[in-house]
């Protein structure tokens, strides 16, 4: 699975995700990636989220939207909301999970509970960074 989140100079937020699913998956199986609110979500003024991991749990937990809800209704920061989702909630299901998210102020969060996640970001300083492991 691959994904991207962005904040532009006019303050607009967007998210996109794309996947092949998983090795040997049943024909017709669909995971969280194409389900808005599960694998992908964006709301101006709050944040944009793109998820990766075992999709069934992300769907049942409406994971991408959960980040937006935690920030909108519980006043959590991006970091608090994404860590709670990935490191607490999804980890309790004992599944591999990760996401990238950016909020309206340009803060970036990229938590994952596996040994690695291929990821990259360019923030306000304009510096390009790429990483694969912790």
């Amino acid at each position: 699975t691959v994904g991207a989140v962005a904040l532009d100079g006019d303050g607009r937020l967007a998210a996109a995700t794309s996947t092949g699913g998983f090795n040997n998956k049943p024909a017709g199986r669909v995971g969280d990636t194409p389900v808005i609110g599960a694998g992908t979500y964006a709301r101006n003024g709050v944040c944009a989220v793109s998820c990766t991991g075992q999709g069934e749990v992300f769907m049942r937990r409406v994971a991408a939207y959960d980040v937006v809800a935690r920030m909108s209704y519980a006043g959590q920061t991006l970091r608090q909301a994404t860590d709670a989702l990935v490191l607490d909630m999804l980890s309790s299901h004992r599944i591999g999970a990760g996401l990238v998210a950016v909020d309206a102020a340009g803060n970036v969060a990229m938590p994952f509970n596996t040994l690695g996640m291929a990821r990259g970001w360019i923030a306000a300083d304009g510096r390009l960074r790429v990483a694969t492991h912790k």
Partner: protein
Amino acid sequence: MPSPVIAIHGGCGTLAADLQSAADWAETRAHLAAALRAAWRILAAGGAALDAVEAAVVVLEDSPHFNAGHGAALTEDAVHELDASIMDGATMAAGAVCTVRTIRNPVRAARAVMERSDCVLLAGAAADAFAQAHGLACVGNGYFTTERRVQALAALKARAARGTIALASEAERHG
């Protein structure tokens, strides 16, 4: 107004070092950087976040190193069924496709669904036909196949035949 930002992922998992050669790891990182640059060119020129995320995902779909587009995992029937979505936080518009088999860049089809249909999600052969009707690049299903995925499927099926699939690693299961 805030400074632009782009962040991307290429999937999470064991990312075991022995799963790829050093050259493959280097190319994986190079393709991540290329995806960031494709998005940054848009953002730095005052472009929209929506265009930036689409551009970044297209680069990753075209890379053989990620489980999306070219390089995607194989189903139990040894074919590719791909899923993608996109969402514009400014308008709350969204588009998605699932179980498509012939769309070279599924994220572009997701955007077409968002902008040129009344739907949010289109599925299967109808989504493939929608993409073709809207002039998106279409390919044979084999375009998405890489040797690495063929071997991964064969390894998991061999485990199933031996009755040891429960011992399969995360990497074997998900790739």
